[in-house]
């Protein structure tokens, strides 16, 4: 009942490691265009392999991990290893399941399309 399977143990280790790092809320910029929303989250040091994006019903969750391996003994420190984490609620007009994500230059770009029903439509006048 309380035993962990091998995979669970590995997952638990990762979660524990994440828990020991400070969690910070990344700054985001969001734009709206005709096809939907585009969200840019600043996650310097995070990579494709350390970022996860999950959508569950109307909740969007972004998480990323940045380690910043030390280049020697610290002389002056303004940042350190972190877990970036932030959640949003998606409006009904957005199709979370259709979202796509990319990580480049420390920026997570998330493109969230509108649902088909909420896209602007041209109505022919007859």
């Amino acid at each position, binding site marked *: 009942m309380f035993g962990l399977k091998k995979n669970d143990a590995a997952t638990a280790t990762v979660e524990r490691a994440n828990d020991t790092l400070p969690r910070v809320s990344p700054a985001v910029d969001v*734009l709206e265009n005709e096809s939907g929303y585009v969200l840019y989250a600043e996650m310097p040091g995070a990579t494709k392999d350390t970022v996860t994006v999950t959508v569950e019903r109307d909740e969007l969750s972004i998480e990323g991990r940045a380690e910043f391996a030390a280049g020697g003994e610290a002389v002056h420190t303004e940042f350190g290893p972190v877990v970036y984490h932030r959640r949003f609620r998606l409006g009904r007009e957005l199709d979370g399941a259709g979202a796509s994500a990319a990580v480049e230059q420390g920026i997570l770009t998330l493109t969230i399309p509108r649902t088909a029903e909420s896209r602007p439509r041209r109505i022919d006048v007859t």
Partner: protein
Amino acid sequence: MFETYTIMDQLADLARELDRAFVTGWGSPRTYPALNVAETADTIEVRALVPGVKKEDLEVTFEDGTLRLRGKRALELPAGAVWLRRESAGAEFERTVRLGTPVDGDSVKAAFADGVLTLSFRKSEAAKPRLISIN
């Protein structure tokens, strides 16, 4: 619409704003980008967080022991789009840092990945630690 999810996230937003105010004095780019400096016996390494900044928009100079980082983050708004939220730091920045240890300016190696700029300098011979034998 597209809102912050929980009260905890809203508190985190507030904390971030306060951090930013504390560090930068409400929008002053003086302490942007954030920098770390580390050293080994032979090297001084400076790292800067510059997420979203393109290589061609970043200028790094080193003169008289002072490192200067200048650049801009060009966030372009495509035609027909509108911003719903802007939180990222100022578009243009300049920061200088004086390296306390003499380095060989020609030795600098730069790496740029994942929004992190890493500059590695070799300490000048005179600045390296030496073992002095006692006779």
